């Protein structure tokens, strides 16, 4: 499947931000009183939402079961799946 370079660039940005969110989540699970970490988490959660909105407007929904909006016709089920890119 031919995908434009922008697909990979935008996806990688999302993966970077979301990785920090995963790592911060685990850190905060054992350090719940770290205010700076909570602030950083919320800031990155906001950035992740912005990046995903941009990605989804070009390449379709990222999240299942209503986590993302659908266009018409229904495009959640469309390739590419993550292991195909």
């Amino acid at each position: 499947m031919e995908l434009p370079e922008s697909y990979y660039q935008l996806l990688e940005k999302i993966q970077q931000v979301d990785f920090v969110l995963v790592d911060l989540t685990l850190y905060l699970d054992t350090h719940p009183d770290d205010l700076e970490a909570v602030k950083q988490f919320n800031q990155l959660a906001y950035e992740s939402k912005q990046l995903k909105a941009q990605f989804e407007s070009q390449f379709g929904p990222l999240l299942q079961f209503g986590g993302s909006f659908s266009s018409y016709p229904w495009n959640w089920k469309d390739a590419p799946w993550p292991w195909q890119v």
Partner: protein
Amino acid sequence: MWLYEKKLQYPVKVSQCNPRLAKYLIEQYGGADGELSAALRYLNQRYTIPDKVVGLLNDIGTEEFAHLEMIATMIYKLTKDATPEQLQQAGLGDYYVNHDQALYYQNAAGSPWTATYIQAKGDPIADLYEDIAAEEKARATYQWIIDLSDDPFLNESLKFLREREIVHAQRFHEAVEILKEERDRKKVF
């Protein structure tokens, strides 16, 4: 419940078709210290572990499924263009006879995944020490696979996974300390 997100946690690229490497990698798919074992172990322990550390088990268990998907993607990409002859030369002739190109939960030596790979003792300290050991064993396994691999793209993803095992072990150590603190506080009163 869970929501699927249509992306890998970290990019997976491979240089070329390499079924030999896939044969080794399957250890982390359906082996004792692999990602399936990890995800099922932690998510299953959640129900009876003290509230203070449920969140950590829930979140690490969830991340393990993202790692499982990365391993699956590696195996898929390394084998999808392989001919039956290439699979046979890589030691996957027996595998091909049973599964064609399909993925299967087994270890590198061909033993199918079994629930005996995971424990659930109910004692929170015992369970967390098992989890720490599992992370250290998974980290070591990633290192041995990296040592055998000559694919620089694949190694980048494997090093990411190896580092995650270290972080998880660190968080589980902290969880043990949190529970010990709580236990000692109860003794004081």
